[in-house]
């Protein structure tokens, strides 16, 4: 059994089921992200783990102990909120020491733990300030220190970076990950930002309409999405409509161009499917070997500096592809007939 | 969760009882003028009383004048303070809050002392003077409400840009204030105005001490000399207060200006 075990979790507000049969095991020290658009139920799951919402059914266990019925203040779970939620009437030190104080910890022990935490977040000189005297990034660090000070078993982060500027977001992202690794604390991180989820996590849970669509490492999620939603939500994607001609042989029809995928497909013959490819695996020109080669015309060229994003109109839709800028080779002209190649292996097949 | 809701309902129920009983009592009493039957007799008597008509009419006119004068004094001040003299804000706010701190009876006592018949400005000596003094006194009483609602209204619009836009189109100050600023804070001005109306209409201390026969002293006189009519007057006064507050709600909720604000 995993360290944090969520089984068949359901939550309904009236007739609306916002979380449906959610299952997840998080190992000790693991960093797991819940990724999904707003309203997908990711925050609701997090709030049920924290104890702010009561599940309609299902169970949440930590180290084999069922905590589903336990009130939030007896769960020993740390939480960081999107809007910092520092207590405005307390100084940074008092905020960080809050959990220890209400637990009845001694003054000396509290002081040394608070000092330790201030060192950890790199703000040892700001202990006497009030929250309004801090920048957003500093406030969120303090919130993190406050959540960690009472040594929680699990740390929950509810979109902690989305209220911050882009630059601070990236540096704080790295800092959170560093602190999490140093302390080895089991962490759940909720975000709608795929870059955050992919770059920080050991595993990512992609959520959609209350369901965990796919659970996997960032590499798996990105390269081997199992559902159309995951493929589209994570990263940018080219989608081409196709019809299965021969499922066993992996033959499909893109418009009226036959394409062989060289592997058996799950769909039945005659079924409509989607072929999906990330822009970075599509190359301009004919590649030999196990590649699918399609003919088309240049429809659009965006010169972005180091990268040139080109759109090619092929049978079944538009294909986006990225090439690196090469000073000796100017970008192709609109309307030029070209061929593009995609490796069979990397071409994803999704239900239409 | 259910415990919390239970206590909330309990608090609201007890509060409701305390606040509704006097209203019921007042209404019940006002209907008992004819023995043995509920009737509107007390209201008929009150409404037919020429002194009621006269004092009530006087107070309505006075309240309206108070509102007009209040707007004339407060709107330009609030506007220019926001636009040009932000440093004066604390002082102005302090002054406008003074009428909540200094008891009104003290203020009117000061009037009687400063503007009596033997002073440089013997306002209390003449009918006109007394009425003007009462009017000014009511404007003072309305200052906290007027200023705060107008200032809140100004806060929600970008008066600096509006002013510059109007100036660049060739508008002068009077025009900017009346055509640009006032319509934009109209809802706030109205809520201040209705509040002022509710306060002034039944005011007693100022009027009584300045010897003016307005609605407030009339009510007190009735209270001392009649049994059922005072309750009818109270119901009427309560209805006026309700109407004022209801109108404020109506205007703030359904104003096209306020929709943008939310």
């Amino acid at each position, binding site marked *: 059994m995993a360290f944090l075990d969520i089984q068949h979790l359901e939550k309904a507000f009236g007739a609306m089921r916002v979380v449906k049969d959610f299952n997840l095991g998080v190992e000790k020290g693991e960093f797991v992200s819940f990724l999904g658009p707003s309203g997908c139920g990711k925050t609701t799951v997090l709030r049920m783990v924290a104890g702010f919402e009561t599940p309609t059914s299902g169970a949440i266990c930590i180290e084999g102990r069922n905590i589903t019925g336990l009130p939030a203040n007896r769960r*020993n779970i740390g939480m960081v909120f999107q809007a910092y939620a520092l207590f405005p009437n307390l100084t940074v030190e008092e905020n960080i020491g809050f959990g220890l104080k209400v637990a009845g910890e001694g003054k000396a022990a509290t002081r040394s733990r608070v000092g330790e935490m201030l060192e950890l977040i790199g703000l040892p000189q700001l202990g006497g300030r009030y929250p309004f005297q801090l920048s957003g990034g500093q406030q969120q660090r303090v919130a993190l220190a406050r959540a960690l000070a009472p040594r929680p078993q699990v740390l929950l982060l509810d979109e902690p970076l989305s209220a911050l500027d882009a630059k601070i977001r990236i540096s704080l992202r790295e800092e959170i990950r560093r602190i999490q690794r140093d302390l080895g604390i089991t962490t759940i991180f909720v975000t709608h930002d795929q870059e955050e989820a992919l770059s920080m996590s050991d595993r990512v849970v992609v959520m959609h309409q209350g369901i965990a669509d796919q659970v996997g490492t960032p590499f798996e999620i990105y390269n081997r999405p199992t559902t159309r939603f995951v493929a589209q939500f994570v990263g940018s994607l080219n989608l081409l409509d196709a019809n299965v001609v021969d499922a066993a042989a992996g033959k499909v029809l893109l418009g009226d161009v036959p394409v062989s995928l060289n592997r058996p497909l799950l769909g039945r013959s005659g079924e409509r499917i989607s072929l999906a490819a990330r822009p970075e695996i599509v190359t301009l020109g004919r590649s030999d070997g196990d590649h699918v080669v399609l003919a088309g015309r240049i429809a659009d060229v965006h010169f972005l500096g180091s990268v040139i994003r080109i759109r090619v109109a092929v049978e079944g839709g538009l294909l986006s592809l990225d090439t690196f800028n090469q000073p000796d080779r100017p970008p192709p002209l609109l309307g030029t007939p070209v061929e593009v190649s995609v490796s069979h292996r990397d071409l994803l097949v999704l239900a239409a | 969760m259910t415990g919390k809701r239970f206590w909330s*309902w309990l608090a609201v129920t007890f509060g409701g009882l305390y606040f509704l009983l006097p209203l019921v009592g007042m209404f019940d009493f006002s209907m008992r003028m004819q023995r043995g039957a509920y009737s509107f007799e007390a209201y008929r008597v009150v409404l037919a009383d020429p002194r009621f008509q006269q004092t009530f009419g006087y107070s309505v006119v006075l309240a309206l004048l108070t509102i007009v004068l209040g707007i004339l004094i407060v709107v330009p001040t609030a506007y220019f303070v926001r636009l040009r003299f932000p440093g004066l804000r604390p002082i102005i706010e302090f002054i406008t809050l003074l009428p909540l701190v200094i008891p009104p009876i003290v203020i009117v006592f000061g009037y009687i002392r400063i503007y009596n018949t033997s002073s440089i400005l013997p306002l209390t000596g003449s009918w006109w003077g007394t009425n003007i003094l009462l009017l000014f006194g009511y404007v003072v009483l309305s200052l906290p409400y007027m200023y705060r609602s107008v200032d809140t209204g100004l806060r929600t619009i970008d008066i600096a840009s509006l002013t510059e836009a109007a100036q660049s189109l060739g508008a002068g100050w009077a025009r900017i204030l009346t055509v640009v600023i006032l319509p934009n804070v109209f809802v706030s001005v109205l809520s201040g105005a209705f509040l002022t109306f509710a306060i002034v209409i039944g005011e007693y201390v100022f009027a009584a001490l300045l010897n003016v026969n307005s609605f407030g002293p009339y009510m007190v006189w009735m209270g001392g000399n009649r049994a059922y009519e005072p309750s009818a007057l109270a119901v009427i006064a309560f209805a006026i207060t309700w109407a004022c507050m209801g109108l404020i709600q109506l205007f703030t909720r359904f104003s096209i200006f306020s929709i943008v604000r939310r």
Partner: protein
Amino acid sequence: MNTSALSLPATLRPRQIISWFGVAPFFLFALLFLILPTLNIVVGAFRNAQGQATLQNLGKLFSPSIQSAFWISIELSLLTAVLGCLFGFLIAAAITLGGLPRPLRNAILTFSGVASNFAGVPLAFAFIATLGRLGFVTMLLRQWFGINLYGSGFSIVSFLGLALTYLYFQIPLMVLIITPALDGLRREWREAAESLGASGFQYWRLVALPVLWPSLLGTLALLFANAFGAVATAIALTGSSLSIAPIVLFAQIRGDVLNDPHLGYAIAFAMIMLTAIANGIYILLRMRAERWVK
């Protein structure tokens, strides 16, 4: 005037002058009809009939009858301010945090707007009609429960009756002022406190009440001044049978009692001082309580 002021660009000056014309009426008005009258009273309290400086007037305040009038006033104001704060807080908490239906909240807020302005003469009439000798509730209690309110010593024309009546505008005023403050308590604060192991009581003691403290104090001071200056309600309710400070002053001004205008000055001055002290205490405490606010 220094040179930098003189060397202002010419285009700026007419603009400044117009702006000053915009605010000048306000200052003139406030000076003539608010500040000077008040100052006149303050100065008058320290002068005798011949215009010489004296402390005699203030000394007269300590005569037993006037002293007791002030004590009753202070007790009445303090009691109704504290109770108004307490009950108003409970109702405001019920409608903001208590999970009551939204329309009820709006209805109560609107009603509070009405009730807090329904002071003065009509309010007194309403209470006489309710708790007077022949009042609605008095009769109800007698007929339904056999309780004789007036037999047990209650009277609407008493300290208790006056306090009950004052609460009718004190409580709604508190509700109106404290509801936005309670709305300002963010849900996340409570949740953060809970996730850190705090009980509901600890959350209120360590976070919510300290955050609300300045508003609570401010309202207390305001309610005190509000009750202290309320004359019309008291006069319409009790005539002049209950001797509270503003009624004594009212009688002084009317000349009903021994006509000594300088004693009137002293009473008025003492009233200003008391409300000023209440507000001074409030400002002081607020500054201390609000270190953490911008």
